[in-house]
């Protein structure tokens, strides 16, 4: 049986590895658009700061694929899928038949409609090398601008501070993660950034970049700003052209069940590109983070080899902006929650937001309150009814357990 995996990131590579572990007789083909062996995108900020050398970001050697009997096609992408005749067309003109197909294509970074030297993105190793070059050309004290209010914006803020570049951050909403966080939490983050020397411009749209050959500034809906370097973090989008055309059902991501099966037979999807049914929070969610990608890869391998096991994971993502730890656990979709309650207030050193559905905790965001992490993760896992003791939970000075 031949399993074709589209996407050589951590989800696709884990699926390939696990498939061979479960059944060495399987023929596994791994198609990777990036012409590089698997590396950790999470290590890229460490690489820019010089904490690890370039070779340390790689998690697999190029020889690993052959040693493990995985046919690796680097630098190749899929251009179309024919589900009736079970084959994919590749960018090199070949047609590749499959018995099972796993889509693990991740997402593409959203770009501004204009470009200029000095504008940077932060998704892959190429972006990172480019940014490193820009940073090396930018003397400390030069003005930097960050555009975006999410995880990548935090990375830029930390990197620019590390390089002593005075930074202004602009984003569309009132605060970071505008559709997830309450105004109280958003204000806490804004205040923390301001206290640490960052100029924060909420409700601001980037309209234009200035400069002839190199960036000299940006024009925003709130005026002009000088900028030698601009870090853009506007999220990712799914390149769904060939996927939707083939009839694979998509919503915000490719729709699957808890075993990562799509609506079409023998076609599966995992990783950042997927919107899967999560039995822990009893809803279809997206979970674009490292551990989720690994667990998706392992779970789909079990589905394909006949050892079906639904996904069991309380997904979490952790980041840090200038010393403020921020942790997202479980399902933090505000619209899908019946109620969101706060533990702490803007004036405190931290706030935890709890997302409740049908009386159970389904998600949480912790800002500067790391000690809440373990008990809240357990509560989400065990579908703990917390409605009756909300008074105690909302008191930030009372321990959760």
């Amino acid at each position, binding site marked *: 049986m031949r399993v074709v995996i589209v996407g050589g990131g951590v989800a696709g590579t884990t699926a390939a590895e696990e498939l061979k572990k479960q059944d060495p007789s399987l023929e596994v083909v791994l198609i990777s658009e990036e012409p590089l062996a698997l590396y950790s995108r999470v290590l890229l900020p460490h690489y820019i700061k010089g904490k690890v050398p370039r070779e340390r970001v790689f998690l697999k050697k190029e020889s690993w694929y052959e040693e493990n009997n995985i046919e690796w096609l680097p630098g190749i992408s899929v251009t179309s899928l024919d589900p009736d005749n079970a084959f994919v067309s590749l960018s090199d003109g070949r047609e590749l038949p499959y018995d099972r197909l796993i889509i693990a294509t991740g997402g593409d970074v959203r770009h501004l409609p204009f470009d200029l030297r000095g504008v940077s993105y932060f998704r892959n190793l190429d972006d990172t090398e480019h940014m490193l070059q820009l940073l090396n050309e930018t003397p400390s004290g030069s003005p930097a601008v960050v555009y975006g209010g999410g995880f990548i914006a935090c990375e830029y803020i930390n990197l620019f501070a590390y390089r002593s570049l005075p930074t202004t951050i602009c984003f569309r909403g009132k605060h970071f993660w505008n559709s997830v966080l309450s105004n109280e939490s958003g204000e806490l983050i804004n205040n923390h950034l301001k206290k640490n020397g960052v100029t924060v411009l909420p409700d601001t749209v980037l309209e234009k970049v200035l400069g002839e050959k190199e960036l000299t500034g940006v024009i925003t809906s709130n005026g002009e700003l000088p900028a030698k370097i601009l870090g853009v973090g506007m999220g990712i989008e799914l390149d769904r052209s060939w996927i939707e055309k083939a009839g694979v059902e998509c919503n915000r991501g490719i729709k699957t069940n808890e075993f990562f099966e799509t609506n079409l037979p023998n076609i599966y999807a995992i990783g950042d590109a997927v919107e899967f049914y999560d039995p822990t929070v009893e809803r279809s969610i997206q979970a674009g983070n490292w551990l989720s990608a690994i667990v998706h890869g392992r779970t789909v391998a079990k589905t394909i080899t006949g050892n079906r096991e639904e996904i069991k*994971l309380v997904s979490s993502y*952790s980041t840090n902006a200038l010393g403020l730890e921020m942790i997202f656990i479980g399902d933090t979709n505000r619209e899908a929650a019946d109620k969101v309650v706060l533990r702490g207030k803007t004036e405190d050193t931290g706030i935890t937001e709890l997302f409740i559905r049908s009386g159970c905790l389904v998600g949480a965001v912790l800002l500067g309150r790391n000690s809440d*992490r373990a008990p809240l993760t357990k509560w989400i896992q065990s579908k703990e009814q917390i409605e009756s003791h909300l008074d105690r939970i909302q008191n930030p000075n009372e321990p959760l357990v």
Partner: protein
Amino acid sequence: MPKITVKVDVDLCIGAASCVTIAPETFQMNNENKAEVLDRGLIPDTPSYERTMEVTDSELATIMMGAESCPTLAVFIFDEEGKQLFPEE
């Protein structure tokens, strides 16, 4: 039973907690949002970023899987002679 040393590089750890999810008897997050090493869920002394312990082969496999799942490769595992088992050098 193999005797191993498990060490977390605090500077590399970003608090992703993947090791804790995969191997909860060996790792836990502390209040600094860093992973600490436990001895099979027991805490004979204060939590630590480095611990030497005797483990069964199956426990070692789980600890290795926890280390392999770390996106910043912040978990190091050494054998009794001090040879680095993970990450591969």
